[in-house]
């Protein structure tokens, strides 16, 4: 009797909240369409890489690259790219969905009902974190299914035979799972801290798109002054860079730290923002 609302009920209620609004179909439909488009465009690009246009001014170089693409290693890399088509951009859906899960409660003023039903606000935010990361994983699943349908068809049409179970391919696909989950967590934490849907989306987009360029510019400026190589490694503190480092086998850029550092930093952002969101949510009055 003296038990607070069961954890599993809270998470499944959060899933239900999202699934019972039209936003759900928007997210899933939008994501599927964009992913299909991305893999389609990727196929077109890869086709022209394999068969350079005859009037290309650098045709000789293109033909050399095409030959490299046809080696087993080159073909495997191509398959890996196809299997993760557009994901540097489509993880944005996870970020948006994460912040939507919290901010929609404030926009739609359902937060009163939510906190009346369960006054343990920290548990609600934690349940939302669990739901958001699960939805991130669902995006990954959808993307992987769409890509897994298109990729073999394309590869065989180009007379390449690459097993999708090749290590390079499976590693790329596996690494994008944490990317989706962690961007969803990032968005959720951001939403919990900011509460305003419009502001959370803008800040999320700035972190996502602008972060890379801003950090690169700053680290370059400081490097010009002090000439320390670690400044380049330090770029990983930007979420967009951390994500890039995490999903790139080998080095994402010169002096890039190892992959696990990117993963730890992304997870750190998600957890720190969520913790800050919980503290704020518990303190503030619901109006």
């Amino acid at each position, binding site marked *: *009797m*003296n*038990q*607070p*609302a*069961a954890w599993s*009920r*809270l998470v*499944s*209620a959060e899933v*239900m*909240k999202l699934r*019972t*609004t*039209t*936003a759900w179909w*928007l997210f899933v439909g*939008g994501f599927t*369409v*964009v992913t299909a*488009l*991305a893999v389609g*465009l*990727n196929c077109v*690009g890869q086709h022209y890489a394999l068969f350079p246009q005859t009037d290309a001014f650098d045709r000789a170089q293109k033909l050399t690259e095409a030959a490299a693409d046809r080696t087993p290693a080159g073909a495997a890399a191509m398959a890996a790219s196809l299997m993760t088509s*557009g994901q*540097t*951009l*489509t993880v*944005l*859906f996870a970020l*948006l969905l994460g912040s*939507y899960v919290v901010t*929609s409660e404030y*926009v*739609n*003023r*359902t937060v*009163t*009902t939510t*906190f*009346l*039903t*369960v*006054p*343990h606000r920290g548990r609600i935010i934690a349940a939302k974190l669990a739901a958001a990361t699960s939805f991130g994983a669902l995006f990954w699943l959808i993307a992987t299914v769409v890509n897994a349908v298109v990729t073999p068809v394309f590869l065989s049409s180009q007379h390449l035979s690459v097993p999708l179970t090749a290590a390079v391919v499976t590693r790329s696909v596996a690494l994008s799972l944490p990317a989706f989950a962690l961007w969803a967590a990032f968005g959720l934490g951001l939403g919990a801290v900011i509460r305003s*849907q*419009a502001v959370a*989306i803008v800040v999320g*987009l700035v972190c996502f798109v602008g972060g890379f360029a801003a950090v690169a510019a700053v680290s370059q400026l400081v490097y010009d002054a002090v000439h320390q190589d670690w400044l380049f490694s330090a770029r990983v503190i930007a979420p967009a860079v951390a994500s890039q480092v995490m999903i790139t086998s080998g080095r994402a850029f010169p002096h890039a730290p190892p992959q696990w550092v990117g993963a730890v930093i992304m997870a750190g952002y998600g957890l720190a923002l969520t913790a800050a969101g919980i503290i704020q949510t518990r*303190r503030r*009055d*619901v*109006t």
Partner: protein
Amino acid sequence: MVVALGVIALGFLVWLVRRERGGQAGDASGVEVTPELSALAWEPKRIPPDELPLGRVVVSGLTKQYGQVKAVDDVSFTAEPGRVTGFLGPNGAGKTTTLRMLLGLAAPTSGEATIGGTRYAALAEPALRVGAVLEANGAHEGRTGRDHLRVICRTTGLPLERADEVLSAVGLGDAANRLVRAYSLGMRQRLGVAAALLADPQVLVLDEPGNGLDPRGIRWIRELLRSQAAAGRTVLVSSHLLAEMEQLADDLVIIAGGRVVATGTVASVTGGRPSLEAAFLELTAGEDTIR
């Protein structure tokens, strides 16, 4: 390729934000239905005498200060089980703030409010013990009335079918699968009441439940609340509709300017004056209506 995807993602985003905004505006442009008026579809279960004290609502010394303004100033009263307690006051008197503190949505500056001796947030299963209707907009515009209730059922562990039972009990059976966006204000109030009744709780707290209801609806809610109190439940209901309160309440708490100015039975508060209205206007005289 990145540019093309970016444009699509951005378009999606703009659309999503605009849609959310539209949902917030939420004018009830949908078709109005006059729901079938029914008494509750079930006979309210009587609260056993030994459990009655668990329903006592005690507010003691509750104060809420915003900057220099005391919105609620040392408010104390008790809402007894088996009785309807009317919480009266002019607009801006602090009724809603008091109820929000009682329900753990706002933190008091000082003082305490308890239900059966325990703060709301410290109750084991508050949503099963206390049903509350705070605002007519506590439901997502883009969700159906049924789904709104089912989410609450899922959270509290009640069977999902309970949503349908309660919806037909409040006369929204036919509108169950319609989006809340299309509900009239009266239907929203009914949905709020339905949410409060989901767990058949021992304590009901309602903030201005008569708002937006037509005369039939007002009579319905009066009969509903009276029957709940008759079965041993504690009913605390705020309003500024005096004539309605005179018929509904057993006890009254009148606040003005954040302070309690009168408590007692309807008869004792009215005193020798010709009507509750006369008493109310006299007791709340000199208080700004807008604070």
